């Protein structure tokens, strides 16, 4: 089947979700929509089960941190419809301090580790996740290292200070 045009996709989502889902843009023809955490599971379920859209394949879940924004943490889903070869990107932004979002493991088994990884790096808490633990980092770590406030290098290091190079 042919690729679903983005206009049709926007219309299908708007018919069902009205203003709860907003279109952010189409960078490189990949439709990007934003929604709130209240609707995210409904939206994912709709996209997965709708007879025309069939976004049945979960490509990826990840997050991004914008420290300057009010809603700092963005959780990003990439879905793929293998029948129509269409992709869609969904974003949900969360306020720091209240980083709860329902888990997508109810829809895909594969979401399990992707969400664990997102939790490990950004501290996003996926409610209803069966086993939300750190996955790549050590268990007793306290920071969420992919957040922007954690610099790559140890700030206490002195051997790279400009002062020592006469700058």
């Amino acid at each position: 089947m042919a690729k679903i045009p983005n206009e049709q996709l926007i219309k299908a989502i708007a018919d069902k979700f009205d203003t709860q889902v907003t279109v952010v843009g189409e960078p490189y023809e990949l439709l990007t929509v934003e929604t709130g955490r209240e609707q995210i599971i409904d939206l994912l379920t709709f996209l997965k089960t709708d007879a025309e859209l069939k976004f049945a394949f979960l490509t990826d879940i990840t997050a991004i941190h914008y420290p300057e924004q009010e809603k700092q943490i963005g959780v990003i889903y990439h879905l793929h419809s293998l029948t129509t070869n269409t992709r869609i990107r969904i974003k949900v932004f969360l306020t720091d301090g209240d980083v709860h979002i329902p888990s997508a493991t109810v829809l895909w088994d594969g979401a399990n580790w992707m969400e664990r990884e997102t939790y490990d790096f950004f501290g996003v808490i996926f409610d209803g996740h069966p086993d939300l633990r750190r996955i790549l980092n050590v268990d007793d770590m306290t920071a969420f290292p992919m957040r922007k406030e954690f610099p790559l290098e140890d700030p206490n290091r002195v051997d790279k200070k400009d002062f020592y190079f006469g700058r």
Partner: protein
Amino acid sequence: MQNHPVFTDNDPQSELSTLNLGPTHPATHGVFQNVLQLDGERIVSGVSTIGYIHRAFEKIAEHRPFYQITPLTDRLNYCSSPINNMGWHMTVEKLLNIQTPKRVDYLRVIVMELARIADHIVCNGVLGVDTGAFTGFLYMMEHREAIYEIYEEVCGSRLTTNIGRIGGFERNFNSKAFDKLRAFLKNFPKTLKEFETLFNRNRIFVDRTRGVAEVTAETALSYSWTGPILRATGVDYDVRAMNPYSSYEDFEFEVPVGDTGDVYSRFLVRNEEMWQSLRIIEQALAKLDKEDSTIFHADVPEFYLPPKEEVYNNMEALIYHFKIVMGEIPTPTTEVYHSVEGANGELGFYLVNDGGRSPYRLHFRRPSFINYQMYAPMSRGMLLSDAIINMSSLNIIAGELDA
């Protein structure tokens, strides 16, 4: 998955033993830990632990300019590093709207398909070793060596190749590389044929692999599986065919699909993929003859570092060199997702850019990471010896798993 009666933890009759399969167990092909509860030789339950060689790939990438992320990508799936490398550069080129010349695309296809063959050689060869047959591995490794020698001719290194640049390659392919490539194309099919004869109808091998670790298409899709292990279950999803990149649309090839989704089926799919890769390389070589043999990168001086001798002797080259190194050239503020067909499945790069010299955020959809999560659930009820074979058939690469 097999349906054997197993004891549970609550069963008073059972005496379960705990086995730490790994890390650095010779049968785990890398640093994975699986804590298994065994009832005799039957696995009752298991928990996988990963992250032993986690190197913060994404965090480091946030602090490096685009052209310096190349060596990081090489160290992910180190059995087929050029694919990671090319995938990354194609993502940057998509971000910067760079059109690569056809000859670059064909050369990339050749290098990527060679990498796929090298990866499958290791995977299928080791699958043979795990069932007790060393010969196939020995025969095939000779040709992986030949592939490495082609890389060596092209870029000077063998394992972590660092072969691509934004817009093309660091240097042109010399005639010796093509000679070695032609020799490889001549010699390898014979060995591959021999390898197939050795295993495909081998009584012991078939008994050990057929019906082991069977996965249905629904389960595989629910776990977001991609690559040969998904295709072994009967789903013909291949990024090369579905979303062609690097002029894959110019080539004729088939997407081999299995039916049963067991270890044997994965083995056959990978073998068939090697034949298809050879077919693609033959076609790419033929197409190369029609292209200008001096072109090996796109004309994008603002992103492609000029050759050193020009920097010393040419003012413009010096300025561009300076601008690239100091990161003074603006890049678009947007986000891009690009995926290529890695040896293990869909290898995706999600790049968020804020206009700076390095990515604001780079996420890497690693097929090994996503494929491996099913290992512990699917091992339930399996014999320990079957779980070992299952692991080699999934072809998990630790560098890519942990990133």
